[in-house]
């Protein structure tokens, strides 16, 4: 091992370090996909409420079947309860990524998350 390391010259060390740093930075940079910042609640496709994902809170929205309860927490949101028969949107649990969506179709309610940069349509490298 030591004999191998002796083959590295000072510039090699610096270059390897820079390369490692670049690779380390590239992972979060390219794989983050942004952070979810806002929860949007829709009834019949129309936005009825929008909350920042900062403080915990609950919000009830009344659809044709009854009341759907939304829970907001720092960085995430979920459908806490829903009168729908199959409970798909409740079983989805916490949503954390931007553009994630839970749809309670029977009650016409949807909960979706949006990121900070929802405005961009493309990324250039």
């Amino acid at each position, binding site marked *: 091992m030591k004999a*191998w390391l002796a*083959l*590295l*010259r000072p510039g090699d060390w610096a*270059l*390897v370090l820079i*390369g490692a740093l670049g*690779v380390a930075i590239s*992972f979060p940079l390219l794989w983050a996909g942004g952070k979810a910042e806002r929860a949007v609640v829709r009834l019949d496709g129309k936005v009825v409420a929008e909350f920042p994902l900062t403080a915990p809170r609950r919000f009830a929205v009344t659809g044709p079947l009854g009341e759907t309860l939304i829970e907001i927490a720092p960085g995430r949101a979920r459908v806490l309860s829903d009168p729908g028969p199959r409970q798909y949107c409740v079983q989805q649990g916490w949503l954390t990524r931007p553009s994630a969506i839970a749809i309670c179709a029977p009650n016409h309610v949807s909960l979706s998350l949006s990121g900070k940069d929802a405005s961009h349509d493309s990324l250039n*490298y």
Partner: protein
Amino acid sequence: MPVMTASTIDLKITDNDRRIARYAAAAIALTVAEAALPSPLPGVKPGLANIVVLIVLMRHGWRDAAWVSLLRVLAGSLLVGQFLAPGFFLALAGALASLAVLAPAARLPRRWFGPVSASVLAAFAHIGGQLLLARLWLVPHDGVFLLAPVFGLSALVFGIVNGLITAKLLKENQA
């Protein structure tokens, strides 16, 4: 009217040509051996043939290294049945990008920068060239860049390993 004389095309084979052919043969053998290795992801491979290219670069300069590298891509792809397939063009793009970077990299002061520097730089250039061609031609979507961190990591690791092997071989066989 001038008198027509029989002419023959005379190809002079120099010692330099023979040397390049020998190195290229070694590089091609490594390419073929490597093709037998399973890869977790297309594009992630050690690139052992680049050890030969680096040795040629360090011993005989960039021109000879370019010959060996490009002969390796051509003959290697013929042997593994990839000639003119997408894999061939990706290999060619990688080899050309590496050579483009190795030209200035070979001029770095040897006291500070050894074969590992050249190897790591060439490895990054290699995936850079391949990703660029893949983006422009094979997968016209920015999604290919999501693979960049994985390719970058493999380039770094194999760049260091190949560079160390090159440095060791050069040290053990000092002419």
